[in-house]
């Protein structure tokens, strides 16, 4: 969070997208996170994804809770409305915002403390309601802003910077999201932009609750030997199940895949997810298989990344509530107030 705005001047030959915007138009204020923080890489990936998707920045609402990760929405999409809410309660605020206007794109950014500890309940309920959103947890397994306490995603047996061993079982948000009915579940790594950017693009175009657990090492408090969320550890144990190409629906689908190693998934909005399979037999449209696979690899000490599950036919909360297609926040007096004649009928029934 900073009052330092980035200079607006940019190189005249910067690449533009379909809206004629450059990548710079998707940036925000200068980050105040520690130099080298994984979270800044995620912000950069969000900027890249929004730019490549040609999203009108002002049609994105970005919401967060409290913590290092929750500061980041100030650092991307500077023209968008943002809301730094209450610790652990971003999911409910995002849900309410989404109810008010179904036409915006909702991006929730949270951390492992914000979503797996104080906000575990709200995370779970927003996911199970099928709120149409992209929900990114910038997961570093540690409380950064309060200087190094374990979070609920810290692995059992991992060591804090001070050498304390964590004895509590870790919450694996990906497994939880799968069980709760999230219709898009992915895990990635802040240091793997090639994997992360297409995942964010696919999540943003997914209708329903799209969840990305993004491991994001804390270079100050959780990047040492004994940590299971350090750059070195994640690189060594990363088991990617697939690589994603995101293809906008209107583009011709040209894929350079060999038969048997790719999966094509068409989402509601016509966009196509072209998955280069890395793990044999991995089917990202089979929720139960995904859960089983995750547990197996986790037991083997691997961190599975990639698009783990997607239901391309998912429905969202608005469909369940059967709300009108006009955003509720734009309905006026005539749409909402039944008037005196209706009141006279009500009065007559109460005598």
């Amino acid at each position, binding site marked *: 969070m900073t009052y330092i705005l980035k200079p607006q001047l940019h190189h005249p030959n910067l690449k533009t997208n379909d809206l004629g915007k450059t990548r710079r138009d998707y940036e925000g204020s200068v980050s105040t996170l520690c130099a080298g923080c994984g979270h800044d890489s995620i912000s950069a990936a969000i900027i890249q994804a929004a730019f490549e998707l040609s999203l009108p920045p002002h049609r994105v609402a970005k919401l967060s809770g409290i913590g290092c990760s929750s500061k980041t929405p100030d650092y991307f999409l500077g023209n968008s409305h943002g809301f*730094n809410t209450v610790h652990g309660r971003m999911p409910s605020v*995002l849900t*309410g915002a989404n109810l008010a*206007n179904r036409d915006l794109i909702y991006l929730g950014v949270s951390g492992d403390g914000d979503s797996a500890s104080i906000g575990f309940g709200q995370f779970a309920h927003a996911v199970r309601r099928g709120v149409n959103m992209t929900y990114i947890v910038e997961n570093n397994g540690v409380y950064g802003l309060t200087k190094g306490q374990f979070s609920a995603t810290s692995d059992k047996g991992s060591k804090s910077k001070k050498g304390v061993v964590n004895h509590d079982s870790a919450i694996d948000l990906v497994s939880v999201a799968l069980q709760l009915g999230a219709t898009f579940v992915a895990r990635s790594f802040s240091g793997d932009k090639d994997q992360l950017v297409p995942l964010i693009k696919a999540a943003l175009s997914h209708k329903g609750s799209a969840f990305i657990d993004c491991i994001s090492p804390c270079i100050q408090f959780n990047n040492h030997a004994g940590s299971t969320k350090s750059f070195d550890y994640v690189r060594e144990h990363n088991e990617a199940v697939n690589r994603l190409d995101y293809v906008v629906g209107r583009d011709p689908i040209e894929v350079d895949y060999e038969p048997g190693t790719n999966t094509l998934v068409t989402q509601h909005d016509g966009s196509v997810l072209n998955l280069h399979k890395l793990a044999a037999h991995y089917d990202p449209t089979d929720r139960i298989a995904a859960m089983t696979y995750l547990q197996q690899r986790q037991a083997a000490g691997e961190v599975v990344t990639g698009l783990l599950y997607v239901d391309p036919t998912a429905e969202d909360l608005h469909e369940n509530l059967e*709300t009108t297609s006009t955003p509720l926040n734009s309905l*006026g007096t005539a749409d909402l107030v039944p008037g005196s004649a209706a*009141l006279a009928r009500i*009065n007559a029934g109460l005598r």
Partner: protein
Amino acid sequence: MRSLESTNDFVVKFANVNGSGSASANSMFAKSILRMGVPVAARNIFPSNIQGLPTWYEVRITGDGHLGRRGGVDLMVAMNPQTWDRDLAEIEPGGYLFYDSTKAMPPTKFREDITVVGVPLTRMCNEAYSVPRERQLFKNIIYVGALAALLNIELAVIETLLAEQFAGKDRVIKANVEALHMGANYVTTNLEPLGLRVERADKVGDRIYVEGNQAAALGAVYGGATVCAWYPITPSTSVAEAFTSYCEEFRTDPETGKARYAIVQAEDEIASIGMVVGAGWNGARAFTCTSGPGISLMQEFVGLSYFAEIPAVIFDVQRGGPSTGMPTRTQQSDLLSAAYASHGDTKHVMLLPMDPGECFEMGALAFDLSDRLQTTIFVMLDLDIGMNEWLTKPFSWDDSRSLDRGKVMSFEDLESGREFGRYLEVDGDGIPYRTYPGVHPTRGGYFTRGTSRNPYARYSEEGSVYVDNVQRLLRKFETAKSLVPAPIRHDAKAATRTGVIYYGSTTPAMDEALQSLAAQGLNLNAMRVRGFPFAQEVMDFIAEHDRVFVVEQNRDAQLRTLIMTEGDIDPAKLIAVLHYDGTPITARFIVSAISGLLQAGVREAAE
């Protein structure tokens, strides 16, 4: 022994077992008297239970229109053996006991100073019906029929009510009418009418009979609420339920069948208010309904709404508690926790309805005020208003009224180059302008934070910036004084230096008490407060009097504390009159407390 004799002025109390189906029969009893043009005030006293525990229903028949609880019982309908002894003890000397005489009771189970009326209800049911459920349900209708005959209530009126309730189910209507007559016939054949009588009158007028929660929910519909997020909690649940049913009726798009509203039962009260704040931030009118424990849980978000200046409406139906039990009893005990909810320097606008009529009005007004003031508005009901049917003036609506969305900058405003600073003082009233997310591609976007930002919503940790902002919030609160409903003053017929201040459901008991006190020669000027922050008139009223009683339904004199704090009033001047056992306050209580205090004061002055 002299039996009580009274026409159109007595109290009937029904002692029942919860879950026995008595509620609708008892309600019909009360409504039949209303239909005869005689005002009633009926109150449920119910347990935290679905089946088995004792429950009572108290009906005050009041030709003079006193809608507060009177206290005391003239006719006890004792249908619950569990509570027999205490029910019997509650009957006024000379009063009446109605009971099921199927099983003989020893004389020691009765009192000598009351009239005992026995009707063998169980035997009559067992002879007439074979299905256990029928025996249970028709017993209730049989005793209503018997009571009608005893009290001179017109059977035709009850028959009409049955026909309305079971419209389209002729067989059910017929069976109920038969049961009704079975009870009435037993009385005319075997018993004498009581000294308590209902006589047809014309004292109800065009008033309606409705619960405050239902009225508040209708107010939310008329106030343009589109998002409701809530968590079940007695006594507020029926607000959300009524809102749901009114929305289904009035807010379904006639062409598409789609909903012009969204109602979410949240996982808890924190999520409820979070959704409300999110929807308010995004330009929809949103509310939650809750009670004291919910207010406790919502504190953090209410503070965020205050500082980030986001509209929200909370209907707080106050009650006793914690635990289960007292939460089904009434209190006015959340005033302070609502007024100063949350961490940091915060204070919040409250509307204080006295009856369902005002629940509707203030329920609708709350949404205009929340948009106008960009903050949380509390509507403070209580269980007595919320969950009991009250006789109240009919709902009315001015069709020329449109929703006041407050200071919102549109696409055109932004496009015209008008300066936008989300927290910028522009008009001198402390209220800044806001934009809805997504309104303009390049202008009007901002990052919302509770504090730590300048008038243009950019990050700042400067102390002076913080101070300027919270001073502006105080100016906004000052603006609110002229927007909340003004207090209502009633002066005594004779000049007096003694005043009384009260609010909400205390009002009918207070009105009646003022009449009784005046009859004793004790004159008080009265002021009913209807909103917080308090208007200057409230402080002027206190200044005009030597002493002012503050009558309210909690232990800690919360309204008195609020007045003292906000008006910088000498505590010695404000005398607390407090009622907090969970039953609604009565005129008898107020009269006894105030006359006692006044006489003690007179003695003190004389000594």
